[in-house]
């Protein structure tokens, strides 16, 4: 065997080894195995780690607002989604996620979340009818709201809001203590998809709520708040006296 022959064989073997080593299953991927938390920029990971617990997988089926609901996405703009994600909502269970507000996420990560949530809209607004503005124009009038309530809500939630044929109580003191006025507005406009509560167009079929009616109903609901919600605990309140006598 000539010297050149030997060297070419060695080179071939080395080349084959190098090729094989590229495809070995144990070879680590290009990224570190575990990223620093602030380096995670994958929407699915960020969403499932921070949001899915309350808003549900893929933005549906959670106890909090259904973020993937097309009506919600048409109603809330980017700025609103970003503001709520970053700063949370005071006195409710929505925490602030931005570092500037005491959360764990960087501004870049908030961007990823907002963009990802927005991408669920698929780019088209539903139904043609423009939803009411995300932010109320004014404080609203509770007395007019009571009338609007009778028109649009009483059918399911009962004449006084304490529950009826199709809906549960929405004037419970503890419930109202845990939801903001903006949260009430969102619920009135978008309905609650998980509970078949209709959106603002379909409370009364063929008669969408106007901007003012939405604002007034929220004002009426807000006026039902109690000063000391949840106290005393419901089970300690005097029950129906008939049973004990």
């Amino acid at each position: 065997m000539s010297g050149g022959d030997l060297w070419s064989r060695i080179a071939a073997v080395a080349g084959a080894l190098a090729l094989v080593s590229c495809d070995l299953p144990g070879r680590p991927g290009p990224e570190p195995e575990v990223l620093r938390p602030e380096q995670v920029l994958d929407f699915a990971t960020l969403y499932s780690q921070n949001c899915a617990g309350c808003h549900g997988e893929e933005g549906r089926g959670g106890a909090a607002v259904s973020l993937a609901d097309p009506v919600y996405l048409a109603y809330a703009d980017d700025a609103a989604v970003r503001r709520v994600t970053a700063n949370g909502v005071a006195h409710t269970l929505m925490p602030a996620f931005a570092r500037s507000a005491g959360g764990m996420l960087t501004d870049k990560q908030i961007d990823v979340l907002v963009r990802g949530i927005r991408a669920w809209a698929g780019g088209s607004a539903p139904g043609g009818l423009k939803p009411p503005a995300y932010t109320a124009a004014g404080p609203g009038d509770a007395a007019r709201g009571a009338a609007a309530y009778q028109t649009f809500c009483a059918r399911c939630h009962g004449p006084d809001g304490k529950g009826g044929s199709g809906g549960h109580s929405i004037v419970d003191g503890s419930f109202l203590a845990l939801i903001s006025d903006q949260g009430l507005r969102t619920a009135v406009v978008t309905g609650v998809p998980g509970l078949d509560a209709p959106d603002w167009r379909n409370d009364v079929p063929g008669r969408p709520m106007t901007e003012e009616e939405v604002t007034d109903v929220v004002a009426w609901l807000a006026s039902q708040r109690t000063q000391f919600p949840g106290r005393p605990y419901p089970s300690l309140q005097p029950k129906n006296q008939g049973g004990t006598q």
Partner: protein
Amino acid sequence: MRLLKALGAWLDFRLRLGEGIREAATHPIPKSSASWWYVFGSAALTVFGIQVVTGILLAIVYVPSAAQAWSSLQVLNHDLTLGWFLRAMHGWASNFMVALVLIHMIQVFLFGAYKFPRELTWIVGVFLLLMTLGMAFTGQVLRFDQDAYWGLGIGASITGRVPVIGGALVHLLLGGPIIGGDTLSRFFALHVFIIPGLLIGFVGLHLLMVLKLGINEWPMPGRIVRRETYLKEYEQLTHEGVPFVPDAIWKDLVFGAAIVAAIGVCAAVFGPFGPKGQPDPTIIQASPRPDFFFLWLFSLLSLLPPQMETPVLLLMPPVAILILLLVPVLSGEGEKHWKKRPVAVLTVLVVAVALGSFTHLASTTPWSPEMDAWSGAPVPISELKGRSALERRGALVFQAKQCRNCHRLGREGGMRGPALDEVALRLTSDQLIRQVLQGGGNMPAYGKNLSPAETTALVAYLETLKPAGRAPAHDASQP
């Protein structure tokens, strides 16, 4: 060829090693000892050889500084040709070495090979086991990722529980009051100089004794070891025996080669261990685990009642080591065959099953608290169906206040507390409120962390958690 021979003769004339080596290689051993059961010790030595070679190669690139250790492993994993394979070999060989040393020990114990005159060989072997485990732990620390950082934290906490001198010991272990660059330097010195140096010395001693005292003969039921007669009997066996080379050594070589191949395959297929996340104590999104040979300790510590921790941690290791050291002293004579030593066999079985179960528990049980269960696991849709506005707010309280770190719902969540899928069958509304506000059992009180409205909503939600059609818990004192 003739030149080589001449060179060899020239060297040997001056070194005078050849005769000793020839003698050691061809020394006669009992025929029965040329067995496939007698290959584990030599295989462990082979793996140690791999560790020395791969370890030296790794040390060329590895930077033992707190700031750069983690990134130098990233360089090995991603930037150097086959650097990842080198790390994988070192990591897998470490696992194999621990396993082989344990198997070797069990085999020696069951074959009664520690009995007269090989007591000291066993005692040295116990130290070799401790050093192997020491290498495994210090090696895990050198990886300097989250597992290493928190593993060190646990090690330091255990050390700190030693009465009187605990603080000084922690200082000695960490090179200061906290885990930092000094800690890493210390563990680097331990892993690269101190323990390997001792290990090489003790391996030499161990081998020397094996050569001088001869390999243990295959035990036979009824053949009793007595100090007065054993040496003569053994001599008789070796007299009828075979030379170590080549009659026995080929099995060692074949098995050793198979082990090396197995390590290579594991390294190629499963890759290197970690490094996991950076060793930064401000990163709280970490669920550190020790490497597999310490997993049993991890679950033992989780399962122990708190008041038992210190005594068990501080007494168990010295007692266990003392028992191991005393084994040949206490039963240096007598029966070697396992069939006639039921207590020995049962001891091995009980210890193996216990360690195996603890390891299994540690690697499969979702140990609580599961810190991201609340945020990562949505409330099952079925558990929200038909719930009122208040109850849905309660579900949000349940998630946001992280009840799920300790409680499961829909098979997801921690297991520190009971699963809550059917809690409404067990507790009435009053009992739920009391439990949430005041805690009790293993549960902290949440009264100060929940507003009355939140408690009301939470309890309203918990009251809905029961299978459809079953009556909720009933307060027997009420009509």
